[in-house]
């Protein structure tokens, strides 16, 4: 078989792919050996394929990876965590619980009580809504008959009431006073922490179960 230049050019891409008959391949190689122009075309075409096939041709704009990652995170449904994920979540939960404990203990340790005779109480759920009156000294459960100055009452979170120096009502909030009446202040602090930890651990368990259900 004899081929000319045009034939070579027409088949040069298939030649590079190895996608031609052996007879044609031999004929092309024979022609190319003696043809300067076809040698130039073959060398150049092969170089084009090699250059463009190099990974270095792939460049991305600055910050591309970060933006892609962020876009994926924003658009992914909540994930079911692996072991490492759970460890991180557990550590975060402990930190959060610790923060609450720290906050709570500081509230109970240093309340500037409105009444010097009142007991600060212990284990009051910080998010519980309680009733106080502007000029009063104690906070109450809603509906407590011992709320004074009912014309100026407001409902606030127990955390806020404690911060304002209100003490638990000895009638409607007595369960939070029992420990402080019977124990010395050091023992009282321990009891407050233990009670709080138990609540928090229950909350954490509920939160984890919920996440697992979502992931499933």
């Amino acid at each position, binding site marked *: 078989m004899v081929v000319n230049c045009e034939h070579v050019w027409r088949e040069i891409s298939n030649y590079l792919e*190895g996608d031609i008959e052996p007879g044609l391949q031999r004929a092309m190689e024979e022609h190319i050996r003696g043809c300067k122009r076809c040698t*130039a075309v073959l060398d150049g075409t092969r170089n084009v394929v090699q250059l463009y096939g190099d990974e*270095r041709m792939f460049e*991305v704009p600055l910050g591309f990876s970060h933006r*892609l990652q962020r876009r994926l995170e924003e658009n992914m449904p909540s994930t079911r965590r692996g072991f490492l994920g759970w460890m991180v979540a557990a550590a975060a939960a402990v930190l959060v619980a610790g923060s609450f404990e720290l906050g709570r203990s500081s509230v109970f340790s240093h309340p500037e009580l409105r009444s010097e005779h009142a007991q600060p109480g212990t284990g009051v759920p910080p998010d519980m809504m309680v009733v106080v009156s502007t000029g009063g000294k104690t906070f109450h459960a809603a509906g407590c008959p011992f709320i004074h100055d009912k014309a100026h009452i407001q409902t606030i979170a127990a955390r806020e009431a404690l911060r304002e120096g209100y003490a638990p009502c000895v009638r409607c909030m007595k369960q939070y006073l029992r420990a402080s009446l019977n124990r010395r202040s050091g023992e009282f602090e321990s009891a407050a922490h233990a009670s709080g930890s138990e609540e928090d651990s229950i909350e954490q368990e509920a939160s984890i179960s919920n996440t697992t259900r979502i992931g499933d």
Partner: protein
Amino acid sequence: MLEGMTSLNSPAERFNEETLIRRVREGEHELFYELIRPYERRVYSAALSILRNEADAEDAAQEAMLKAFKHIRQFRAEARFSTWLIQITVNEARMWRRRQHAHLVEPIVDHEDAEGNYIPRDFADWREVPSETLERKEIRDKLAEALESLGHIYREVFVLRDMQHLSIDETAKTLGISTASVKTRLLRARLMLRDLLAPGLGGTWSTRLHFAKGTKPW
């Protein structure tokens, strides 16, 4: 010949990839980025070669990866994951192009799928490709410029086959054309690029390509 141009990942990498795919499917969504990270440059490059605009390419690449995530259960292990990603990206980028430029008229050359012979117009000798050539940004820019000047039907085939290393069949399926058309367009794309680049990279000039931007010698 072009041996090795379609090399797959190593067996260890493939095993790791299969594991990641399984874990993402089972709900560890945060591993998805880890899965696509090795291909993000290729994905962006595929989108850019079709859209020719960096901002559009980035948006299309992000959208394509979100679609890949949503449809990862549809990925079949007999295909390469990288090929699957590139196919999704190409489809997404082509959709963007249709949506954004529907009102524009493409250059005539983009519509013609010339079956006639292409005659090389330059016979500059270009035997050697120094390994450090691509380290030079101006060379990479010139290569990108030359590629950009091709009509999109040639550019798409060239990018999928010679840059993304899809097979002829995969390229044909991705673009919805016959393998014969892929071969014809590939031949022309390679020869046109050689005509554009050989005079410069062949050594008659070394620092500046002398074809004017926007002009096509064919």
